[in-house]
């Protein structure tokens, strides 16, 4: 026992996260300094710490850099068309209500092309866990202005600075009716892991925004340095305010970042509301859907 480090052949030891990944696809295509890998790392650790039953998990991604998460995770996953991750996940959830469906996608996919699906899934309180990795730009297509690009940031299609006001994503999710809204950055790895655990165990529409550096496009166009420089900026400028009013958590270019769990409330999910409504309407003639499996 005392001379363990000498006896054990260290190179044969494998990263404990590797069983959760499709190892034939590793190394992944994300750039050096990109935060998507770190956010996925936190997600896998949350699954590992919860001992989550992987047969009851489905991961759905859209298109984009973050959309490749579904391809790297060694669970049941689907890589959908652009922006349609939430409709696909809704169908998956309603087809098999005992699945936990996680939508893991980027800001361009969820809020530009799929923005309409997002607000309606939140309005219905569909039982989904939506993770949005927000890197303020369209990474895969070359750094165009996204609906989350802060005012004043330079992008390929806005060479003199962006003048379009961006979305405040937690406020959007909150006002549409999400039951859990949180924002963390990839600097806050432990809090992010905890937020993933809370999101995986929460019922209803859960929204988690993860701020992530994009060193190749967003940071380079704005001369903000590499991924580490952005993480240091997150470390300096982020303020933890749990329960903050989501109207006040908007982001500005290199300004303060309010992080934390903003909303945590209870509302009947779409399936519960449907079962209750039809049970009241039709009494014993109605067979509740998905209830017998939910224990």
């Amino acid at each position, binding site marked *: 026992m005392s001379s363990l480090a000498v006896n054990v052949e260290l190179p044969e030891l494998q990263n404990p996260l590797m069983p959760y990944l499709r190892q034939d696809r590793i*190394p992944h295509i994300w750039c050096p300094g990109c935060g998507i890998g770190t956010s996925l790392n936190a997600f896998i650790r949350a699954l590992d710490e919860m001992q989550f039953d992987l047969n009851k998990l489905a991961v759905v991604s859209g298109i984009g850099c973050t959309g490749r998460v579904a391809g790297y995770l060694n669970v049941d996953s689907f890589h959908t068309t652009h922006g349609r991750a939430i409709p696909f996940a809704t169908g998956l959830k309603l087809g098999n209500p005992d699945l936990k469906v996680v939508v893991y996608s980027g800001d361009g996919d969820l809020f530009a092309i799929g923005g309409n699906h997002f607000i309606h899934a939140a309005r219905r309180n569909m039982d989904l866990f939506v993770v949005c990795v927000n890197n303020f730009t369209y990474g895969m297509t070359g750094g165009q202005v996204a609906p989350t690009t802060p005012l004043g940031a330079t992008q390929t299609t806005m060479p003199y600075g962006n003048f379009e006001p961006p979305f405040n994503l937690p406020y959007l999710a909150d006002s549409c009716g999400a039951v859990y809204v949180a924002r963390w950055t990839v600097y806050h790895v432990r809090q992010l892991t905890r937020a993933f655990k809370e999101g995986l165990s929460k019922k209803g529409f859960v929204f988690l925004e993860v701020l992530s550096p994009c060193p190749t496009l967003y940071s380079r166009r704005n001369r903000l340095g590499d*991924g580490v420089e952005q993480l240091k900026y997150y470390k300096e400028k982020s303020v933890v305010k749990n329960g903050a009013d989501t109207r006040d958590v908007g982001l500005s270019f290199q300004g303060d970042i309010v992080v934390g769990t903003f909303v945590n409330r209870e509302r009947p999910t779409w399936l519960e509301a449907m079962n209750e409504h039809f049970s009241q309407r039709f009494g014993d003639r109605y067979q509740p859907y998905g209830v017998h499996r939910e224990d």
Partner: protein
Amino acid sequence: MVDEPTKKAKGTIILNKEICKGCSFCIDFCPTHCLEFSKDFNRKGYHYPVLARPEDCTGCDLCGLYCPDYAIFGVKFKDLEKLAQKAPAA
């Protein structure tokens, strides 16, 4: 292979240097600053982290939590045997 641990070292890192992309997250955010860039390159041309001050490593695994490429993780010496038993099944 890891250096011969001194009495102070509580843990070590395990690195798969071929999948490292040299982003330096682990080097910059190591709580004890025991990592440094290597002098030589891996097969893809990146500098990978090396345990420059092995006596300072506590095996806290924060490098493993930050690593976007799943290349590095820390382990405490007391957990090494448990991990080695788990490895073949994984």
